Each structure stands twice: as structure tokens, then as C-alpha cells.
């Protein structure tokens, strides 16, 4: 009851205060409960919305989610593209008044890779020299990390090799600074609400698990004068229908997801408020290429070419997800202008089916000897709808599908163990670069006698593909690099290494009261750029 009373009192006081000064409060539907407020402990986009509002990295995002100077006002890159020298802004500080220094960044990167931190997303910054070896415990001296504070205002980062997407990766929360003075004092508890500080536009004030996180505008932020929203509630609510009801009741200003079957209703009744735009991510099926019938490329080809991708977004999901024939999402940076598009995609469907039947016959299957395959997906209405639809599309070519659904943890455990024939998967890009998706099809690496396939669940393997990725990783010319990666994409798709199905879309609903919301392929919209009229 004490908690309830405290919450009620705090709420009442906050309400009175907010009324008296007419502060602009953003009510943001944010989905799940954050796992943590510590940038080294989080992994989801709902956490990114909170953490990215209160901590700022060397670079940050503008309203369109493009990388712009953040805590660093400028930088230089060495000719070979491996050494970055950042110069921090004057006067930047944590919300307790302590200056933000290059030492905070150096400390944060060392903490990120320190095995003791057990940061689940540390690998995203593995382009930094010695980071992977430190994270694996191979190097125990953290000073060997390629991040050095030259002085309080200058930070030098050395990479293993030239990495074109590195500046973009620095906008990611894994590259955010942490307050050295507080982490040394409180340890991991620095991120508890009682201790936490910010260097970004907002400061965390409250976290009521299961309900909301609340932050307020930080007056110590260097650009505070241009920040319009005074207070933000990041509401926890995973039920999309309930969230839409609360939006309609005026309790939310922005919805970050909605039930797909309500899209038409939204367009009819709240025109202009639903923002459904391509999102950097691919929804796909993996096929087990280590054992079983799917080691045969003819069967993989028959499966992939008979998927009618055009009906999935508009008809099965209802939100117009775009059909995917390639592996790298359109709009990805550092890539060739023309997306991969196979010739068979333009053939009439009947021809594709006939060809697929022939392929199946060549592989030894036909009407008298149908092929039965198990399709695994994690429990979700949309995954089920798609699985049922694809099973129907494959029936005419003599493939019978047994559907098998399981909760997420079990599903991915089975995929990782190679215990499947066809499996559902999806990938949202961590940073806008083709390597982030193409890496999903890299051959596994042998470690201690066991091959670690990482996210390559289907265990697709092609030496030429792997070599092209290695070659691209050292190519400084971005155009040439893009071409090398495009060749790799073509090889993997021509070999039907996986079945891309659709490109994701982001699904936001934004109240007309909100201005400054810019659609973008990363679906990142920082509160700093928004304003609200009452």
C-alpha cells in the first residue's frame, strides 16, 4: 500500500505541477517493459526509445534518424579508415553537473566489452580493435582496447579494419557513454532511478514496472533551449488492441504498433494518423541445408519460387508489407542502387508452378510420392497466417507441410540446434549497412571443435560468398564494396540460401497534436525533435 500511496501522491503532485505551468507531456505507447535503463544491458527498440532520450553518444540521430554530431561536435578519420578522432563539445555535462569527458566514453567502451558486464549486444561494436578478444577473455588488459581518451575533450577509436558503417553504429546505444563517477560508486546500480543521471535531452524520474517510465526535460543538455516536450511517459502495454483503445480515448499521443487488421479502420476513421513505412528488416524462412531433403537446391528453388509474396502484405497481413525477393532491404546505406531481383520473379505464376513441379520430379518427388516437411514458427497470429498460406501455396507442387508452433525461446533453441526443416525467422537491422543482413548467411566458425553458426540457422555455406564478405570488409572504396556485397547477395539468393518473404514495415499512429514526427526506415524518432499542441 505504501507504494500505491507514494505513486498516487507523486502522480497528484505531478498533475498539479503540470497543470500550473502547462507543460507539454508526451504520452508514448512504448510496448514492452524495459529490461534495464543501462545502455549496456538493453537490446530492444522499446528500450532504445527510452535510453536514447536520456543518454547521447558521440553521434546522435536527427529527426529522420540520420547520424549527426551528438556529444562530439567534430571528428577526423585517418586515410586508411581505421582511426577516428572525436572532439567533444564544450560544456557538456551529466545532469548532476559533472562534466562529460572522453574518459567517460573510454570507460564505457571498456565496460561494454568487459566479460564481467555480460553485455548481450557488445558484439555490435566488435569493429573496434581488440574488442572481441577482450570480450572473450583472450585479452584481459582492458587498456589494449582500441579506445583511448587523449585528453578530456578528445577520444581516439581504432578499428580492426575500415568500417563504412561505423559512424552509424556509434548512434547505437552500445556506444553511449556511462557516468564513470557513478558506475565506480554504485556498480550496476548506477542505472537505478535513485542514482541515474543523463547527458541527453531528458532525465529519468520514475519507473513503475508494468506501467511506465517517466522522464523530464534536462536543463543541463546543450540543446535544451530547442527541446519542446517537457515530460515523457513511455507506457508499457503489449496488448495492441488495448493500446489502440487508449489512443482513441486520448490517453496516448503516439502508438508504436497497432493490430494489422485495424489498418483499414485507421485509414477510414483517423486519416493521416497511421504511418506505415518500410522498415529496415526482412521476414524470411530458413531451410535446413545441413541435413534432410532441403540440402537439395532443386527443392529449395521449388519452395522459394512458388511463394506468392505479393499477397502477403496486402491480403494476409493487411498492412502492405513489401514483397521480398532479395536479402538486403531497400534503402540500406552503402549499397548498390538496384535491388536484387531474380528473373523468375517476373514469370507468370503458373509457369513457376510448372517449373517447380519439374524440379520436384527431378528430385524424386511427385503426386505419388509427396514430400512432407515440417514448418516451425514461433507462436503469433501473423506467423500462423503466413505459414498456413505458404503451406497452401506449396501443396500444388507436391509438398505437404506439417505446421509446428512453439513459444519464442523454444523455437529459436530448435533453430540454433538445427532441429528443423523449415523455420520462420526475421531480422531488423542494427545499423544501415548490407553487411548486417548478409552476415546472416556466413558459414559458421569452428570453435573448440564445434561449428558456431550464429544467426545462420539454415547453415547455408558457400565459400565464394564468404570470400566476398571478407574482401568487402577491407575495401575502402564504398562503391566497390557495395558491388562486392551485391555479388555475395546474388550468389546466396541464386542458391536459395533462404526464402525472403517480405520487408518489414513500421506501424506508428501519431496524433495530429504532435509535430516533428518524420517517417524513416529505422523507425527512430527521438522526443527531442517532437512538439505537442494542446
Amino acid at each position, binding site marked *: *500500500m505504501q*507504494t*500505491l500511496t507514494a*505513486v*498516487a501522491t*507523486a*502522480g*497528484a503532485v505531478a*498533475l498539479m505541477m503540470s497543470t500550473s505551468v502547462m507543460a507539454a507531456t508526451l*504520452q508514448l505507447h512504448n510496448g514492452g517493459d*524495459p*529490461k*534495464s535503463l*543501462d545502455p549496456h*544491458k538493453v*537490446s530492444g527498440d522499446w528500450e532504445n526509445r527510452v535510453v536514447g532520450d536520456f543518454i547521447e553518444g558521440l553521434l546522435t540521430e536527427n529527426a529522420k534518424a540520420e547520424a549527426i554530431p551528438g556529444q562530439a561536435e567534430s571528428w577526423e578519420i585517418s586515410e586508411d579508415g581505421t582511426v577516428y578522432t572525436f572532439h567533444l563539445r564544450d560544456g557538456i555535462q551529466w545532469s548532476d553537473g559533472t562534466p562529460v569527458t572522453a574518459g567517460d566514453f573510454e570507460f564505457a567502451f571498456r565496460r561494454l566489452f568487459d*566479460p*564481467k*558486464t*555480460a*553485455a*548481450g549486444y*557488445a*558484439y555490435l561494436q566488435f569493429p573496434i580493435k581488440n574488442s572481441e578478444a577482450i*570480450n*572473450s*577473455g583472450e585479452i584481459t588488459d582492458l587498456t589494449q582496447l582500441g579506445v583511448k581518451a587523449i585528453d578530456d575533450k578528445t577520444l581516439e577509436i581504432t578499428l580492426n579494419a575500415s568500417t563504412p558503417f561505423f559512424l552509424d553504429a556509434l548512434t547505437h546505444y552500445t556506444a553511449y557513454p556511462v557516468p564513470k563517477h557513478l558506475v565506480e560508486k554504485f556498480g550496476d546500480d548506477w*542505472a537505478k532511478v535513485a542514482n541515474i543521471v543523463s547527458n541527453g535531452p531528458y532525465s529519468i524520474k520514475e*519507473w*513503475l*514496472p*508494468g*506501467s*511506465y517510465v517517466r522522464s523530464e526535460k534536462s536543463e543541463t543538455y546543450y540543446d535544451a533551449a530547442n527541446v519542446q516536450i517537457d515530460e515523457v*511517459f513511455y*507506457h*508499457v*502495454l*503489449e*496488448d495492441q488492441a*488495448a493500446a489502440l*483503445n*487508449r489512443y*482513441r*480515448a*486520448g*490517453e496516448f499521443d503516439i502508438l508504436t504498433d497497432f493490430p494489422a487488421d485495424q489498418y483499414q479502420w485507421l485509414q477510414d476513421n483517423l486519416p493521416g494518423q497511421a504511418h506505415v513505412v518500410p522498415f529496415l528488416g526482412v521476414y524470411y524462412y530458413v531451410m535446413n541445408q545441413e541435413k534432410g531433403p532441403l540440402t537439395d537446391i532443386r527443392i529449395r528453388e521449388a519452395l522459394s519460387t512458388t511463394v506468392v509474396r505479393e499477397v502477403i502484405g496486402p491480403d494476409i497481413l493487411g498492412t502492405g508489407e513489401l514483397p521480398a525477393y532479395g536479402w538486403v532491404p531497400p534503402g540500406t546505406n552503402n549499397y548498390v542502387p538496384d535491388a536484387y531481383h531474380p528473373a523468375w520473379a517476373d514469370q507468370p505464376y503458373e509457369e513457376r508452378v510448372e517449373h517447380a513441379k519439374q524440379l520436384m520430379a527431378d528430385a524424386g518427388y511427385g503426386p505419388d510420392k509427396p514430400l512432407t516437411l515440417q514448418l516451425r514458427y514461433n507462436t503469433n497470429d501473423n506467423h500462423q497466417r503466413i505459414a498456413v498460406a505458404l503451406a497452401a501455396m506449396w501443396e500444388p507442387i507436391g509438398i505437404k507441410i506439417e505446421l509446428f508452433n512453439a513459444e*519464442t*525461446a*523454444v523455437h*529459436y*533453441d*530448435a533453430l*540454433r540446434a538445427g532441429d528443423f526443416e523449415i523455420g520462420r525467422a*526475421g*531480422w531488423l537491422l542494427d545499423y544501415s549497412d548490407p553487411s548486417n543482413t548478409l552476415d546472416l548467411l556466413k558459414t559458421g566458425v569452428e*570453435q573448440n571443435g564445434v561449428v558456431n*553458426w*550464429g*544467426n545462420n540457422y539454415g547453415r547455408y555455406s558457400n565459400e565464394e560468398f564468404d570470400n566476398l564478405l571478407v574482401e568487402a570488409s577491407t575495401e575502402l572504396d564504398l562503391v566497390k564494396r557495395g558491388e562486392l556485397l551485391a555479388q555475395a547477395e546474388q550468389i546466396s539468393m541464386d542458391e536459395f540460401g533462404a526464402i525472403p518473404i517480405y520487408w518489414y514495415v513500421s506501424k506508428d499512429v501519431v496524433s495530429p497534436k504532435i509535430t516533428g514526427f518524420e517517417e524513416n526506415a529505422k523507425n527512430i524518432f527521438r522526443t527531442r525533435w517532437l512538439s505537442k499542441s494542446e
Partner: protein
Amino acid sequence: MLAYAFRRVLSAIPIALIAVTVCFFILRLAPGGPFDGERALPPTVLANLRAHYNLDQPLFMQYFIYIGRLFQGDLGPSMVIDGFNVSDLIRIGFPFTLTMAMTAFVIATIIGVIAGMVAAVNQNKWPDYVLVLAVMLGVVVPNFLMAALLQLWFGVYLKWLPAGGWVNGSWLHLVLPVTVLAWPHAARISRLMRGSMIEVLGTNYVRTARSKGIGERLVLARHAIKPALIPVVSYLGPGLSYLLTGSLAVEQIFGLPGIGKYFVTAALNRDYGIVLGTTILYMFIILALNLIVDLVYAWLDPKVRYR
């Protein structure tokens, strides 16, 4: 009776230990782990995480570490909600769940008992039919649907009540969730009370009382209510347990900071710490409620004796 209560409390300790042990091993035997998400973690990172939570230890060692901590009152960390340990989550969430469940319990019990009596006294008349219909709605309509409908009517269309959330902590935020929780509970109680009351009203001693010329209200108050309550009381313990543990959908839909949803979310995410912590909590609640019901039962029915 005190000695009986003491013995029951003592006997709960081995039951609790067995339940925790079974739950611990069943959880660990289930496929999938707390770090099996959409993205495979590099082996080094995974190894760091497993070491951090002692998951790299042999299973029996993990068990002894857990039990050792438990005896020191430490429910351990959450593996999925890193910002809080299990005790923190229970401390924050449980008072809310308890408040909501107790409010629903009291309201449902009062309404259920009165409605059951009214229906029994007016058997096969219009108040009986109206109440039977209300009961049917309460039992048949699933709580997630009722929640969505009430949210739509009272939150979206009429705008009389908040459609969800707990931002300002006003009691108005509790009206819809408590209604959703209380309705089926009240429905079951009224059905029990109606049947029991009809039975009691047909007994010889009630007929005798009436034949002595005692007014109907006095007959009900003095002779009928207490015996008619016995089946209702038997239901109250499990009923309250259901309210405490079954608030998941309500907490999810209305975005409330209760503990109920953590239990299911944690089970799906294999967050061993939260599942075990909430299991222990619920187990003690159920044991305590059963004990209380047994004691109330003895008070209502003197024929019940404890050895």
C-alpha cells in the same frame, strides 16, 4: 484451534520446499533458455551471461546456490528485467495486485451474496431471471473480451473513465479493471448462494421458524444466512487465490503495474528467478488462504472439529 493453525503453518514449510524443488527442475528441463531470443548471441557473450547468472554451474550446484540464497531471503536476480531483482518486482507489483484483488474480492463477495439471496427468495420471478442473466454474462464472457468492451464503452465512447494506465494513481483507474475481475467472481458466488439458500429455505428448521410466526426477514437473518454461507465460504479461498493469480489479462490490457503478468511473461522468457519467486509467493498465499478458510469454516459450522 491455535495449535491446529501452528501445525498447519509448520507443515507448509516442507510442502513449499518440495514445490520449489519441483518447479526449479521442471523449469530447467524445459527447452529454451533465458537468452534464446530472435538473435543468437556470440558464444563469448553467451558464456559471460551464463557465468553471470551461475548457469554455467552443474544443475545441482545451481539448485543449492538458489536454495542457499532463498534461506537468506534472497530471491535472486531477474534474468530478463535486469533493472530489478525478483524481490524488488514483488515489492512493487504485489501491493498493487493485492489491492486490486482484495477490492474485487470484497465487492464481488458482497454483491454475490446479496444477489444470490435475492434470487433465492424470488425464485422463478423476474429478479431471479435478471440475476441469472447477469451471472451467465459474468461466467461466459472471457475477461479479456469484457475488458476490451468496457474499455471501448466507458473509455473511448463515453469517456467516463480512464481506458487504462496508472499514471496519476487515481481510484478511477481501478474501476474498469476491478469490474472485470469482480464480475465472474460475483457471478459464481451468487450462483452458489442462490442454490444453497434455496436448499436452506426448504429445511425443517426454517419451516418451523416460519410456523412460529417469525417474519421472513428475521428468518433469513437468524436461521438461513449462516448455514447458506458455508459453500460460499468454501469457495472464497480458492476464489481469492484466483483473483490474485488470475489478474494477468486485466493487468496486461489495462497496463497496470501488478505482478500477475510477470509470472507468465517470465515463464515464456525462461526467467527462472521471477518464475520461482512468484511461484513461492503464490504458494504461500494459497496455503494461507486455505488455512483461513478452514478456520472460518469451523466458526460457521461448529460440527467441524480439529484434531
